[in-house]
């Protein structure tokens, strides 16, 4: 049954995403595209785009939207509950031990060890997102004539604005969205 599958997939996503919303991306990609084939690369990026634009935790936004795309309103609820459940269980256990012993050094040490691997995992999801944005797909081989010049320019300008003028993600989203509407009307 689709709801049970959806719940189990998002439970796994919640359980193994260490380090916040972006750490959930490679897991969402793996579960919804590679393992179950529920959504396409293009939809994955649209979901991420919309999650970035709306308020609230990004992983929850992405879970609700993905679940909804796959199995309607109830699907969205099931995916959201699934992604939240591991947090509730594990955090409560940790909180219990923390308030009892006030020592979290070992837990923090393990997490610090995870961080480099999490960076690498986000990079692998980031590569899919980057390639799809630039070429329209993420499978080899890539041809130079597939390269979307507008996307390349928007990408470079966005990076520049974030690094030099510290623009926030939401400002980048609004700017790149408006640029898309204006530029593609003429191209």
């Amino acid at each position: 049954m689709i709801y049970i599958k959806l719940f189990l997939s998002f439970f796994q996503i919640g359980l193994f995403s260490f380090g916040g919303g972006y750490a959930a991306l490679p897991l969402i990609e793996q579960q919804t595209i590679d393992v179950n084939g529920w959504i396409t690369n293009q939809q994955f990026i649209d979901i991420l785009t919309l999650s970035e634009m709306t308020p609230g935790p990004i992983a929850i936004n992405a879970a609700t939207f993905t679940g909804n795309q796959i199995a309607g309103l109830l699907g969205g609820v099931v995916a959201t509950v699934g992604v939240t459940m591991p947090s509730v269980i594990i955090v409560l256990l940790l909180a219990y031990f923390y308030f009892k012993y006030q020592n979290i050094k070992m837990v923090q040490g393990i997490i610090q060890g995870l961080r480099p691997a999490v960076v690498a995992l986000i990079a692998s999801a980031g590569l899919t997102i980057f390639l799809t944005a630039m070429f329209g797909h993420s499978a080899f081989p890539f041809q130079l004539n597939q390269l979307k010049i507008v996307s390349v320019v928007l990408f470079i300008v966005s990076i520049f604005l974030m690094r030099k003028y510290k623009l926030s993600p939401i400002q980048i989203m609004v700017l790149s969205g408006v640029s898309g509407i204006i530029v593609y009307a003429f191209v």
Partner: protein
Amino acid sequence: MKNNASLYKTLFKSTFFLSMFTFGGGYVIVPLMEKKFVNELKWITEDEMLDLIALGQSSPGPIAVNTSILVGYRMAGILGALVTVLGTIIPPLIIMSLLAYVYRAVSTNPIVNNMLLGMQAGVAAIIVNVLYNMASRIIKQKKIIPIIVMILALIAGIILQVNILWLLSISGIIGAMTTYITLKKTSTKEDEN
């Protein structure tokens, strides 16, 4: 302190509004949560809040959800945690469900399509920027093991397509071992003194 009903109500209202009106995910919500519970309500001390935030970041799942669970638990036990987790996930649940309908209705509209196409490049830039910040933080520590783990995980994840769960488990074990060794070293040093 206050009576129970109003405590739950304040917990729910605080987390609901933070989740409803804060753009940018956990890294933006958590500092605002700190402001709300430490500075405005004065329910939790600064030091304790820092511990709760560290715990929230150490647990799997969305950081904003984790931190809200901890605050709820700290203030009113398991029931408090339930109240704050609902407060945090209900706003995105409503907003994203509505948005999913709108998306299906307008995703073929040319103007919406052009906007999403433009935003794709923006999202790619945001992720590359996040990655740059995370990777440079690890490199700046100038510790050899994390840098090696990062490079190996990159190769294993992207080129060899090794399963995510393997990569996480192995690096977690390496993290546990290095922490154990450092903790042991510092404690023997303390013994000598």
